[in-house]
């Protein structure tokens, strides 16, 4: 659920390093360079990249630019093809039976392990090409005044995908504002040193 929804789920980050002034004008280009590429007509398992905040189909920011007041807003789109394990099992069995029939006609008794793996790969590819990728997108809001970044997700896998793509796109590193890092930010590095010795309190 994105930030404009009645109810949203999100995590916060801050930037470890200062943003060089030269970066800001490059943001639209950098977003486009790492934009989402459609895989509807391929057999790729997944694809991810940036899209416009307003429209998940817009990877060229034709709908609206990412800058809005003191924020930059865009979204991370992730399309994934998932073929059900039962479907894979069935079609692998069909293909292997056909292959077994074929080698028997040649007088052989079994299909080699290598060939069986090859068949499985081919079946996977064929099934993936017939399966539509499932799209998902997660809002990203970057408060450029406070250098805080909000990602509309709390899933750990999606978060690490986002962190990597963010660094790849902007050459900037993110620090998740978990309790420890948030504490360091609030207290300042010097006072935060005391946190390293902290142990859980026993209230009872």
């Amino acid at each position, binding site marked *: 659920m994105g*930030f404009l929804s009645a109810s949203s789920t999100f995590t916060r980050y801050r930037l470890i390093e200062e943003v060089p002034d030269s970066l800001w004008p490059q943001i639209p280009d950098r977003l486009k360079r790492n934009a989402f590429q459609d895989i509807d007509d391929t057999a790729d398992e997944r694809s991810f990249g940036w899209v416009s905040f307003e429209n998940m189909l817009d990877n060229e920011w034709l709908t609206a630019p990412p800058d809005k007041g003191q924020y930059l807003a865009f979204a991370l789109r992730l399309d994934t093809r998932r073929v059900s394990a039962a479907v894979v099992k069935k079609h692998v069995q069909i293909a292997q039976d056909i292959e077994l029939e074929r080698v028997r006609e040649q007088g052989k008794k079994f299909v080699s392990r290598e060939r069986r793996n090859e068949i499985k790969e081919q079946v996977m590819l064929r099934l993936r090409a017939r399966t539509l990728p499932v799209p998902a997108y997660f809002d990203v*809001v970057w408060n450029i005044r406070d250098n805080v970044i909000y990602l509309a997700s709390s899933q750990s896998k999606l978060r690490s995908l986002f962190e990597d793509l963010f660094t790849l796109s902007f050459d900037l590193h993110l620090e998740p504002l978990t*309790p*420890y890092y948030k504490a360091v930010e*609030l207290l300042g590095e010097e006072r935060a040193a005391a946190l390293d010795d*902290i142990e859980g309190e026993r209230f009872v």
Partner: protein
Amino acid sequence: MEDAYLGQAKDIILGQDFLTWLWYKSEAKAGLFTMPDGEAFSLFMEQRISVQGGEGDSKETTSVSGLMSELREAKLGLAMGKKVTKGQIRIEVDSDAWQMSLRAEDFSFNGFKTPKVDTKRDEGDDPDAIFLEKMYLIERGLSFIDHLFFEFLKLRLSEGWAEECENVRVWLSK
């Protein structure tokens, strides 16, 4: 399986101690808090709380929910040494209300609700007006939590913490 990262153990300690303290504090102060600029707000932990105790295989979690309940079972868990791992928080300022569920281990927010934003737009309005208002409200809601986390940290690292722990003990034994 999530990857371990620097500070993860401290995240759990700080997050759980904070939420546990926040529950105590909100009851002790009848929900009344003040921002550094003097603005008054009320904060309650309500409806849904999860507490956890033990380690590794002997970990035990209790989740309690109830619309108007006092979440006694969860408090009983605290009295047995458990800590709050997730809590639903409600903040009110005048007629504005925020509601969210905060997870102790990573401070992720779930079901974050802000006061309602008027989505009606007139011609000539800034097309980003709704977005900007919504972000303003989200960040305003977060500022209350951040302020209380800062208050908690200052107390946690001060000599006054031992006395506060005693207060928590008295609260739990009631």
